[in-house]
């Protein structure tokens, strides 16, 4: 990723240091943001430019990011978006559906309103153009290499289409799609996001096959049906994105055939590794409240249990909103099992558990 201009230019960097010295303990951004909310790098921000309906309950948000944003994300990556609702910031993660660097100075995410999902509903129906949101930089390794493999399969359920859209649009933009099958399930045709764009794509590229599945009528695509739907699936590098049960089922299938290394999966929940961390007494700030936790309770959950107002974002280790420095002790990252124990090392409280007694510097 290329660094933003402000970090590449020595002159600008010097100017920034000067500005910092003049505005300490704040930064120049704190004053510039009074003029234009996007002129701040303290937290990545964006302005909602347009809200484009996709289906009855899904919409694409076109966002103009502020200073410090790097536009050359890899197709398939996701971003964090923090939206203010009744005075509080709530964070969610969504795949970018836009193609890197072509929309000009904007990026897009496509959001489906989930039943009971107050945030997704607010994003689809409640955001006015002009609203300022917070953003977290693109990340994720659900990406297709460049050049892409010769044969690909995309297994998609519901709103899992968004990272795949970014991948397909990018390939289309480059003018060639390799031998690719998209097996895409949605409840009904009306509920299928981007269905028209995908049908057009299938007409334009002989190498691109679009297998549509409407689950209200035909039921879910199960692993045993894959041989019928995509007979040569074993030869294809596969990207799967959708509901957790679907991903679990296909992971088992690929494992059975010894093909797990060909399967790339995107999950939007924290997959907890079996933690054998010891747990311990966690202290929130030197002299602050303490709480005893087991090796499965995250430090964020522990803090909330102890009545500490902890900062949090995605709660799955993506956005780094919850980072705090470790004062002493050792913690373990739930995802990787890696232990962190350097004093003053920043740890992600939402995915870390105590490996013995530890103290967070709040």
């Amino acid at each position: 990723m290329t660094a933003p201009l402000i970090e590449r230019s020595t002159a600008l960097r010097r100017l920034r240091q000067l500005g910092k010295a003049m505005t300490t303990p704040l930064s120049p951004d704190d004053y510039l943001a009074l003029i234009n909310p996007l002129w701040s790098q303290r937290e990545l921000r964006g302005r909602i430019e347009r809200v484009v309906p996709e289906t009855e309950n899904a919409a694409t948000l076109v966002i103009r990011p502020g200073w410090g944003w790097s536009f050359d994300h890899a197709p398939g990556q996701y971003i964090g978006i923090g939206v203010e609702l009744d005075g509080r910031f709530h964070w969610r993660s969504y795949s970018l559906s836009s193609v890197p660097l072509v929309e000009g100075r904007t990026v897009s995410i496509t959001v489906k309103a989930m039943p009971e999902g107050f945030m997704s509903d607010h994003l689809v129906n409640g955001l006015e153009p002009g609203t300022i949101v917070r953003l977290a930089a693109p990340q994720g390794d659900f990406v297709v290499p460049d050049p892409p493999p010769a044969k690909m399969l995309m297994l998609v359920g519901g709103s899992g289409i968004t990272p795949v859209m970014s991948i397909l649009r990018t390939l289309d933009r480059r003018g060639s799609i390799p031998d690719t099958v998209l097996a895409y399930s949605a409840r009904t045709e009306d509920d299928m996001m981007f269905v028209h764009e995908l049908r057009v794509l299938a007409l334009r590229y002989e190498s691109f096959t679009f297998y549509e599945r409407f689950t209200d009528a035909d039921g879910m695509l199960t692993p045993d049906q894959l041989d019928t739907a995509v007979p040569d699936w074993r030869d294809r590098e596969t990207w799967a994105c959708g509901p957790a049960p679907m991903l679990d089922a296909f992971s088992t299938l690929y494992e059975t055939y010894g093909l797990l290394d060909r399967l790339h999966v995107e999950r939007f929940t924290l997959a907890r590794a079996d933690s054998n961390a010891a747990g311990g007494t966690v202290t929130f700030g030197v002299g602050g409240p303490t709480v005893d936790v087991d090796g499965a309770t995250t430090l964020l959950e522990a803090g909330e249990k102890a009545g500490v107002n902890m900062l949090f974002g995605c709660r799955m280790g993506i956005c780094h909103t919850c980072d705090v420095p470790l004062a002493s002790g050792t913690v373990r990252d739930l995802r990787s099992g890696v232990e962190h124990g350097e004093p003053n090392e920043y740890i992600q409280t939402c995915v870390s558990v105590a490996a013995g007694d530890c103290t967070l510097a709040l």
Partner: protein
Amino acid sequence: MAFADVREYTHLTDAEVDAIGAELDQIRAEIEESRGQADRDYILRIITLQRRLAAAGRITLFASFFPPAWLLGTALLGSAKILENMELGHNAMHGQWDWMNDPEIHSSNWEWDTTQPAEQWKHSHNYIHHQFTNVLGHDNDIGYGILRMSRDQKWHPVNLGQPIYNALLALFFEWGVALHDLDIEAIRKGEKDIPLLKKQLKQIGNKVGKQSLKDYVMYPLLTGPFFLQTLTANFTANIIRNVWTHGIIFCGHFPDGAVHFTEEELEDETRAEWYLRQMLGSANFNGNKLLHVMSGQLGYQIEHHLFPDLPSNRYAAISVKVKDICKRYDIPYTTGPLYKQYGQTLRTILKLSLPNRRTTDNPAPVSPRKERRLRDDERPTRRSELGKWSGTASA
């Protein structure tokens, strides 16, 4: 000796103490439940106002050679610093705005416009002062280690200079605060952990360097030939802030009626008793909205000590309920106009520069009291026909 022997509270039964605790918990729960957009709008308005004042002050001082501009710029900058330290910094570092989940307005990230590093303030103030409020030997805010503020502190001839020390502390309060968490007394007694001391001094040095570079080098240099005028303006703005914050903070715990406690009184303290100690150890002052904003709502010191991490803009409404509780249970609620509270504080500083035998105690708050608080089983049974609170209904 235990908390039950604090004479202001001897008339309360254990059950009444618990009931007061439950009422205060209820107030907290209601505020926590209702925090929302209006509160966020409030703090964003104050932040915007503060940054505009600061910018206006700095810009005005580019004309610091012109005396009216010097005066105006100094006043703007002084107000900006007061607002930043009191309504923003102090309150944000208490975690009053943490519920917004906004990293830019959060206790873990806020650094304030003064020489003390936020990290050290959060220890010396949020923890030591708020947990051990007015407990002699624990709370270093009692006289900041240099003033004798309680008759229970031993007199020493060095205390004769108190009025002068206090004037100096007021003028350079920022520096007193900067050194606050070092715990001068522990250093004097040789009890201070040396690596910690080194770390703290380094932090303070860093912060002092940045603050001084800004106020006493950068801006004076930027105004070119008016270096000296800008420098004196910035210096004066800092002094204005120092004198004001010193005054407000001393009015919080040293007017007549704010009580000091001993270590023994803390034994087995319950949450409800902690609440009561906060109320008795703090003093409010009256004033209009502007005064309260410029003092970071510390005119509601009692409410702030009961609920240090609830949003400051709610203290005014909370005070109505707290006053009502105090009235019903006949508990002192110390308040008065700012000049009176400040006058009483200065009087105490003067008086206590002399040995106890040379002076008389200040008038104490009036409430019925006994030698020791009675346990419920020691009291006559309440007459049911009098109703629950008949004892104080006519008070």
